[in-house]
């Protein structure tokens, strides 16, 4: 059975090569991807939004995304929004760094102070990851628990890179206009293989799954449900 990628948080660093803050974004993102939250995070290279395909551009519509920028130009946040989807969180290193950039060292080699800022920014990112994944909610009371300090894995993993993996998308007509839904082909296949017939109970479940990966405006929920169900019925017939 094809598995839907588990819900993770996407981290996009600007990696700015000219300034030490750019190196901070890169190393902080890698610290989260490799050590702090390796199972919960994934990354993609920012330029791939421009150089890659539609599947790459679906990244920020598929994963809630944290953009990490070295300066106020906010290339990662703005570039992600322009080509993929609005990041859930935008962090600018300058907010946690000393005013004098040279205290961080150079873009090529960070100083001890620079490495401290890397740890601080990585901690910030990890806390946002927890919040976005609802990792620290008390389901009984409905109140968030105090998030723990980011824990470091003893054996770092390699950063999970999504470059070129391409998230499958499908375009539907919803209320007279084209809407692209990410992961829909995978969802349909999973439902078909689970033997789910196109009926009302499947529709509810289908909508719940589609909603995990796609924002569905409340006022258009019925139109989306109709379009998705129609498409699933056709898919089901074709695959019989």
């Amino acid at each position, binding site marked *: 059975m094809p598995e839907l990628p588990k819900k993770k948080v996407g981290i996009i660093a600007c*990696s700015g090569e000219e300034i030490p803050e750019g190196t901070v974004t*890169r190393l902080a993102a890698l610290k989260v991807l490799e050590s702090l939250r390796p199972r919960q995070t994934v990354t993609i290279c920012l*330029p791939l939004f421009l150089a890659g395909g539609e599947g790459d551009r679906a990244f920020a519509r598929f994963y809630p995304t944290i953009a990490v920028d070295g300066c106020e*130009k906010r290339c990662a946040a703005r570039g992600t929004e*322009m080509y993929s989807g609005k990041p859930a969180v935008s962090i600018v290193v300058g907010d946690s760094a000393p005013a004098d950039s040279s205290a961080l060292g150079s873009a090529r080699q960070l100083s001890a102070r620079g490495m401290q800022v890397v740890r601080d920014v990585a901690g910030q990112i990890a806390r946002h990851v927890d919040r976005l994944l609802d990792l620290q909610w008390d389901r009984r009371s409905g109140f968030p628990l105090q998030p723990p300090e980011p824990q470091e894995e003893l054996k770092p993993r390699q950063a999970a890179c999504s470059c070129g993996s391409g998230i499958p998308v499908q375009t539907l007509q919803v209320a007279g206009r084209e809407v692209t839904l990410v992961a829909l082909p995978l969802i349909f296949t999973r439902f078909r293989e689970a033997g789910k017939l196109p009926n009302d109970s499947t529709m509810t479940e289908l909508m719940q799954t589609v909603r995990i990966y796609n924002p569905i405006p409340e006022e258009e929920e019925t139109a989306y449900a109709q379009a998705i169900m129609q498409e699933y019925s056709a898919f089901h017939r074709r695959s019989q």
Partner: protein
Amino acid sequence: MKEKVLIVPCSGIGKCYGTVARQAAYLVTQDLCPEETRLVPLALLVLGEDETCAAMSGAKGITIDGCKLACAAKVVAESGGVVAHGLQVLDVFRRHRDLKPSGIAELDENGHKLAQVLAQEVKGLVDAMTQEMSHA
């Protein structure tokens, strides 16, 4: 003002070859050819920042990509620049298989050596381009 060769490394973050590209670009622009080259951050081109795109327009650049997706070469071309030489770290590695790099945040010794070999190749190209530009 003397025309500089633009050096554009990819910002690959998921594989060590991206870090090799980045290190090679620093070696070229800071140690080997600081007067002849200028490092261009790819993120600014992705964003379409005016000043960087203006500097790129019609200018000749050397791109260094960490994987076959060749983001740096594609984005430079998209931004109106001319990719005089589009290098791939993997091609250099194929010629130096004893230098298998590892590490993304921190390259190992092989990674640094591979970056040095790559930087020397880029320097050769920069020298040739500089000579060509001075005769033009």
